[in-house]
């Protein structure tokens, strides 16, 4: 699907981006010079007045953008991939800040033995680790990409938060 993203400069205010959705609504994002963002939604493209105006501060706008962009959920393409995997699933699992595993290598963690899941990649800034090796160390702020059965992944999440002793 392609659509036109129209960009216009608003002198003294900021920049305006707009497009029309497949269902006919007009969405406009105003990026103010001071960093705030407004989102205007006209239910139909020809409407005079917006149905909704959302005023967002910089951090709120980023949060919303991340949500819409799928940063917190599995992207669609992954869902399709999972169908091919059958009962296995790929999960994006953020490492909790208080996780006892931070600072330890994957070999040391031995998640495969403890929970049955395999860590296939580590997402981190600035450079993600695509083929995770046993000697890779888990760091603060990492997101682990793991493969396992649904129940195993659930165990793994608990393990990641609690540490080796409390999980069965």
């Amino acid at each position, binding site marked *: 699907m392609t659509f036109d993203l129209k960009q*216009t*400069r*608003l*002198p*003294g*205010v900021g920049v*305006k981006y*707009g497009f029309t959705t497949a269902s*006919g609504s*007009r969405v*406009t994002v*105003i990026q103010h010079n001071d960093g705030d963002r*407004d989102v*205007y939604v*006209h239910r*139909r*493209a*020809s409407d*005079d*007045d*917006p149905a909704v*105006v959302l005023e967002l501060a910089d951090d709120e706008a980023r949060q919303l953008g991340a949500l819409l962009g799928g940063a917190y959920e599995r992207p669609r393409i992954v869902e399709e991939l999972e169908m091919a995997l059958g009962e296995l699933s790929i999960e994006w699992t953020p490492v909790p800040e208080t996780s006892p595993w931070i600072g330890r290598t994957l070999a040391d963690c031995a998640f495969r033995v403890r929970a049955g899941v395999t860590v296939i990649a580590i997402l981190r800034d600035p450079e993600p680790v695509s083929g995770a090796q046993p000697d890779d160390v888990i760091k603060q702020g990492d997101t682990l990409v793991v493969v396992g059965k649904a129940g195993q992944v659930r165990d793994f999440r608990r393990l990641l938060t609690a540490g080796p002793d409390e999980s069965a």
Partner: protein
Amino acid sequence: MTLAELSVTIALLGVLGLVAGRFGLSAIPAYLLAGIILGPNEPKFLSLVQPSEVTAFVAEVGLIFLLFFLGLEFSVERLVRSGRHVGLGGALDLLVNAGLGALVGVAAFGFSFAAIVLAACIYVSSSAIAVKALIDFRRLADDETDLVLAILLFEDIAIAAVLGFVATGGGGLGETARVSATALLFVFASLAASRWLGPAIGRLLSRLELEFFLLAVFGFVVGMSALAKQLDLSDAVGALMAGIVLSDSGVREEIEQRFFALRDVFGALFFFAFALTIDVAKIGEVGWIVLLAVIVTFVGKTGVGFLAGGLGRLTARQSLNAGAALVAHGEFTVILAQLAAGNLALTVSQRGDIAAFAGLYVLATATLGVVFMKESKVLGRRLFSVRVVD
């Protein structure tokens, strides 16, 4: 001005500003009204504050801050980027509304320098009021808003040129030419400084501790204003150029954040102090000029909305919205009148007339204009039948 008077002044500014805000109006007419009420001229029931050296000084500082901030927003690079869109609508607006303004000016003062000042006062709409209303009325997403903002930008540039000579020009042809030439030189020197010295000044400033950062910026602004005054230009031009020099310096945002509060306080006091000199009793003399100018403004600005809107393929309703957004006049009209009030080439009665005119005219357009703008969509739906496009 004593502290007691100052406290009454600030309280009244606050109250009237709040009331204006409740009605969706800009605070500018509210500040003017406060000055008219408390000032020594009619109405006299609450004449608490006399114009004095103190109020004149406060007004000067307020003027400097208003123009400094305008300059900060005025980066050369941004100007070049938006240049293409700004041209046509802005040129039409200049032609129509400066032209109509000049007619009113000549009708009021004959062929004179005062007529030019009046033309400029009537030509330039209020960016502050229009932008605030566009945000308040949730119109930033509308197509016609692009046109409105482009025209306002053009006006800001055009009026920056007028500021150069309005305070000191008009003496004789030779004198006015000399002032204009100095102004031009000063502007080019500042633009060059912005281009080549801006980043260096920015680096220097960003290394200072906060306290000294504030003092250095403040000193620079006041210094530029004083320099401009020494050169027989107005302090307004100096402050504007100080803003432009710092606009590309990389510390612009920090300056804006740190000085917003000062600008707002002194800006309010500027409008107040200006209004102290307004004599409402002069309505007998300038009333007809104000009335004529208001009519001309409604016709001229709406007309430009339709002319430029037609060229830009806007619908009739969108064009009406665009024109309505340009009716309100405010900060520039007052600034021009304030600068003219210090120009000795104008006669005392002309200066008084221009001040009274500007005050009443801004009061009228800033309130009526915003109401017109608020209702323009409803009005448009009534006037121009809805064409369903689906």
